């Protein structure tokens, strides 16, 4: 029997190594897998590259991980927020690297990784400083910038319900990056509010098929 939901929070993140690339779901706090991030803080991995839309809010979750000095590099679209003081201070002190990626490019670079594509030509950021030094091409008269996939070693995401095969459904706008991060990581760990029996999720409504999910933890 395959049971992807057999892990505790601590067990689910135990093998995340120093230097790993970790995709962290959420848009602001909606969909932020705070309990998994707390387990990662407890676990102690360092020199992480974190890919997430924002760079932490307040003092908890991703902000706490950054505050502990565990993050070497952030890849995100919108680090600056009213309550991003933890990241802001480290960034200004030169103690954390930032790769700023437009939000749609962040999404499609992870989609490319999940779909096995070698790269993508995206129109976003053409002619701006975020495209400087990048290969460009004109296709049917429109300008595109070459961008490479973002592959995660791990993804930490938050879903609403999951089953022991890893099928997931989400809650409202907390879905945001979850489904595409699940596809883009070698090992996807989903925290869910509720683990349900096989067959209880409507197959027509499953958002993330279990093949993209390796571990499910109820919190």
């Amino acid at each position, binding site marked *: 029997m395959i049971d992807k939901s057999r892990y505790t929070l601590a067990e689910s993140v135990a093998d995340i190594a120093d230097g790993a690339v970790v995709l962290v779901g959420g848009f602001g706090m909606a969909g932020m897998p705070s309990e998994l991030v707390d387990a990662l803080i407890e676990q102690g991995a360092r020199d992480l590259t974190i890919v997430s839309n924002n760079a932490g809010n307040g003092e908890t979750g991703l902000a706490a991980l950054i505050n502990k000095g565990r993050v070497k590099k952030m890849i995100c679209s919108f680090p600056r927020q009213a309550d991003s003081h933890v*990241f802001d201070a480290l960034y200004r002190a030169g103690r954390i690297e930032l790769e700023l990626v437009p939000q749609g490019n962040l999404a499609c670079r992870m*989609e490319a990784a999940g779909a096995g594509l070698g790269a993508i030509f995206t129109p976003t950021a053409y*002619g701006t400083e975020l495209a400087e030094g990048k290969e460009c091409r004109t296709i049917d008269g429109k300008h595109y910038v070459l961008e490479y996939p973002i592959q995660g070693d791990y993804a930490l995401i938050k879903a609403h319900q999951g089953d022991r095969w890893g099928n997931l459904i989400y809650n*409202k706008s907390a879905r945001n990056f979850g489904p595409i991060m699940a596809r883009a990581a070698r090992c996807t760990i989903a925290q869910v509010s509720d683990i349900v029996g096989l067959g209880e999720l409507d197959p027509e409504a499953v958002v993330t098929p279990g093949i993209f999910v390796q571990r499910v933890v109820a919190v």
Partner: protein
Amino acid sequence: MSDKSIANESMIKLTREQLAARVALDIPEGAYVNLGIGLPTLVGNYLPGEGDYFLHSENGLLGMGPAPASGEEDPELINAGKQYVTLLPGGCYFHHGDSFAMIRGGHIDICVLGAFQVAANGDLANWHTGDPDAIPAVGGAMDLAVGAKQIFVMMEHLTRSGESKIVPQCSYPLTGIGCVKRIYTDLAVIDITETGLRVREMVAGLSFEQLQALTAADLVDAT
């Protein structure tokens, strides 16, 4: 600024609410619309309640509704500005891949964005002042700039220090090139066309000459 004093005497600037109401007049029923963070979000309050308007929020909502009643807020139902919102009957949720396919794939009819500067050729600068101490943040602005069928900019005509935000060339880092179609300010409505910046409307008490004096780029009177 001496230019500023020219017009201050007689012109009646639009308030933020009046500006939002003016933009809303140009959004047809049935349009798929993305409203940027800040001032553009106000436009949603002025779309006629009896019509069907499809508000898109890039964090994964279509058919976004107004703010919830006090006590009804759901932390997992927010807009791109991370404010609590609601979903209209018929609305739906989706992930970022779908959301930005809607944007970059040309499915969004109108996007209303704020701006630091707009150039005479439609270049847009709205994500970064270039200040070395500023934490850069771009979000979905560059995707919207290249992807929406029409980009409307909504902003105050002048900066707080009285400088024109409509310029011959942007001095701030660009968000997108040649993407803005129309500018709504607290003083005027201006179309960006191949024959220049065509002024369609001005607020009461403002002459074309006064507007031109307040604007760093050349204007054409098309009122």
